[in-house]
């Protein structure tokens, strides 16, 4: 059997090795681009393609964030597909300006517009030219996101890169601010990261900052474009930053991701600023767990030349104390961890440091770097029997899980059906969370966030034990 063999090998064949996929553990690139774009102040995203793409993505994002997510579409018709999208593009931009008055229009391509060879950069140029480069025209950013290249995660990082590449300008001396590229995290975690850098007294541009745009207050009237987001000026100044901190080891580095040729053109925003403007780049993982959070806090400490604030030292101390309180409930438990690759690495590192065995680490992403990154980051905590799967679908995950007999799943809502079938508990985290409320407030970064995640995991295991016990203990 192929699957038994692959488990023996511990690295599963990638999704590309199969003719079909059942229940994908990924979404398409333009979706990720839209999330990142929502982190720009005054933005309206537009997808250059059929109207279904925008509608599906809006529905998907609204169900997760529970906020209005307005994404325009250039609404390709058959005629557009044959004769090209320039007319739709221009009308689209006109109509967006008329209805939304955005400061920024962020455009992502789709499989359709990419394949018929739309040159969106050119379309943007022509639009600006016909409007005589009027200063009040919205800034336009373009990310190339054909859905047959990579996953929503690559789309996200591509959009982050595109915004920085479009806007960053060298126009002054090096400032005292840093760039913090925070990866695809929850609005609550964005707020926490901002709090942390503020407590270090480091002026920072966090990008993309959708902590308000995708997690807003109740309104008294409808805002066409919600407040909040990283400003265009901040993005412009990113080239003068003192340093960039990038969270995540993999980002969009998977050059072979569904591509024919690895031409090495893919770089992250941090790499671009380093290569083009010599902005030093510090890269750590998503700070989940003590070891990875330590790396993050230490980086900030060395960048700022300041000690870690007492507040966070206390948080760390309480987290250690909490680990001790809960360690017996999690020790030796076998967990399946799935989601975006950087998230999987962070969660696996956390699981391993509290004594949970990450028996299967799976992602729909296919950077080709998951296995080596896990080994490097987990170090001495690496679980030797770990099965690593890239380009995994939920169906293939389930096949492996039937053999691995895990105690717990940690990942997004879409894995729920397997948890239900196998009668094992699931801790919901990551994207998407469609069967619970509060995804926008999911908090797992830093010592504080880890505390919440740890409690969530322990309590889920306790709940499971309690539910399955014939006794009905009130005291666990």
């Amino acid at each position, binding site marked *: 059997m192929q699957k038994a063999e692959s488990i023996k090998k511990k690295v599963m064949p990638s999704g590309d090795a199969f003719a079909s996929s059942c229940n994908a553990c990924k979404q398409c690139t333009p979706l990720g681009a839209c999330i990142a774009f929502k982190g720009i102040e005054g933005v309206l995203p537009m997808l250059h393609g059929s109207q279904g793409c925008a509608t599906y993505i809006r529905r998907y994002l609204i169900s997760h964030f529970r906020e209005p997510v307005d994404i325009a579409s250039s*609404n*390709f018709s058959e005629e557009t597909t044959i004769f090209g999208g320039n007319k739709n593009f221009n009308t689209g931009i006109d109509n967006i300006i008329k209805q939304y008055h955005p400061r920024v229009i962020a455009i992502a391509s789709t499989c359709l517009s990419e394949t018929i060879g739309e040159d969106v950069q050119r379309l943007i140029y022509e639009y600006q030219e016909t409007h005589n480069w009027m200063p009040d025209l919205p800034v336009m950013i373009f990310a190339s996101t054909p859905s047959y290249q990579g996953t929503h995660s690559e789309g996200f990082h591509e959009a982050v890169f595109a915004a920085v590449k479009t806007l960053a300008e060298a126009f002054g001396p090096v400032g005292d601010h840093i760039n913090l590229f925070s990866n695809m995290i929850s609005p609550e975690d964005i707020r926490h990261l901002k709090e942390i850098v503020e407590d270090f007294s480091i002026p920072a541009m966090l990008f993309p900052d959708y902590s308000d745009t995708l997690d807003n207050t109740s*309104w008294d009237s409808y805002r066409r474009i919600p407040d909040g987001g990283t400003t265009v000026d901040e993005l412009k100044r990113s080239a003068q930053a003192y340093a960039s901190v990038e969270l995540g080891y993999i980002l969009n580095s998977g050059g072979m991701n569904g591509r024919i040729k690895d031409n090495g053109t893919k770089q992250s925003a941090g790499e671009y600023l380093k290569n083009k403007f010599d902005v030093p780049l510090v890269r750590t993982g998503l700070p989940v767990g003590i070891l990875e959070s330590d790396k993050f806090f230490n980086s900030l400490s060395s960048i700022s030349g300041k000690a870690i604030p007492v507040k966070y030292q206390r948080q760390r101390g309480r987290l250690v104390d909490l680990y001790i309180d809960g360690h017996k409930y999690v020790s030796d438990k076998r967990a399946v961890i799935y989601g975006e690759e950087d998230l999987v690495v962070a969660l696996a590192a956390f699981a391993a440091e509290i004594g949970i065995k990450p028996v299967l680490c799976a992602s729909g992403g296919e950077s080709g770097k998951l296995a080596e990154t896990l080994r490097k980051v987990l170090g001495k905590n690496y679980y030797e029997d770990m099965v690593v799967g890239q380009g995994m679908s939920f169906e293939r995950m389930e096949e492996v899980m039937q053999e691995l007999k895990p105690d717990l799943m940690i990942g997004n809502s879409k894995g729920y059906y397997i948890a239900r079938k196998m009668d094992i508990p699931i801790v919901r985290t990551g994207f998407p969370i469609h069967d619970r409320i509060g995804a926008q407030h999911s908090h797992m970064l830093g010592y504080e966030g880890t505390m919440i995640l740890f409690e969530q995991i322990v309590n889920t295991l306790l709940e499971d034990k309690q539910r399955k016990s014939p006794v009905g203990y009130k005291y666990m």
Partner: protein
Amino acid sequence: MTDNGLYGFKAEMRSMQIQSITKRQDKITPKQKSMAEYLEGRENQIVTKGVDSHELVGGKPSVAGSVSQRACVFCGSRVVLYPIADALHLVHGPIGCASYTWDIRGALSSGPELHRSSFSTDLREKNIVFGGQDKLYQALHELIDKHHPKAAFVYSTCIVGVIGDDVQSVCKRVQKEKDIPVIAVMAEGFQGSKKDGYKIACDALFSLVGTDESMEVSPLSINILGDFNLAGELWMLEEYYKKMGIQILAPITGDGRVQKVQNAHRAALNVVQCSGSMIHLAKLMKEKYGIPFIKVSYFGIEDMSDALYEVAKFFKDDSVMDKARELVKDQLTTLIPALEPYKRALQGKKAAIYVGGAFKAISLVKALRLIGMKTVIAGTQTGNTEDYRLLKTICDDGCIMVDDSNPVELSEFVKQTGADLFIGGVKERPIAYKLGIGFCDHNHERKLALAGYDGMLNFAKEVYETVTSPVWQFVNKNKE
């Protein structure tokens, strides 16, 4: 929607309505048309009844740059065919189209659940360059061997239309090799809107109809077209019709089975709900097999009862009609008093409706009236001009009617009319919530049965729960 004045309950309903209409003399004065900056070219897609004289035009393509609430051709085909539970639904394209439609519809099955898995050929760049036909062929073989479906639907997406994979020939080949129907659903998203996808789905279904004759068929048999068994609604209808002695031969497509669709040409009557999606199939079946059809709706007491009476009338069988009357009487005896407390609490509240099809909107206006509520906005994604004419006749003056709207317009209309409730789908929910008004999900993702008599009670309860929630006290409303 014919006159059924001769049946007792109807007259009663009428008088209830007249009462409630006369009670609502305090209705809002028709205001000037909203100052919302309508997109150019959309002027005749918005009408305020009693103010504007022009006709509401439906069926136009969406304007570029709009944040339309509509979806694409693929979506239309996918939602219609999705509930066929023993078929393989393979999406030929990059992952997005399959991923976004994985198990999103609350369409239940009493048996197999193959429809709840999301199959895709997950095309990559190399397939786009060198073609995806081989991958499709292999995928079909792989999946048919593994899941043994009774038929396979292969959905062609935007990109497949562009790179020119010959999906039809692959389907033909596999059909021959595997001996099950393998149907190409040529649903490239750019061909139009969701509505065009419905038609393509109907064509796909029609190619199955008439290919099997092995099921037992009662002389009193009908097909149910356009119910998708959301939250088990079809099963409720089945119960009603069974009590009348009527057989549902093929439910299309809720709780659908390939063999039932194949036998559908042997039913005496097609009963079509959601005419936007299924009327094309009904027409095709009438043309080829001479099966007449009627249009019905199962939402609200009136329309639900009409649906039963119309079927009874068709069969010209007194015992069937008697049973229908008895059933309706039974249901109403418990339902009407049960609705009373909700009606008291909701009297005079205002509702906005923005749903997929016009027939649903029409039923909702009536159902809302039954619980004392007035419709101030009625819009749809896919209604046509004719549907809107009908909608207009049942709406009150001052009601804003809109085709293919968007968040900017809808939020503007809500503010302008002071609606207390929004009825729509997930994409409309944040509009309602951000503006601080109640919301009722009436889309295909809902998990609550809203059809039939039980559904009417569920509907009243849901509307009550959201509209009267105390949380709205914390919302600052800039309402006049």
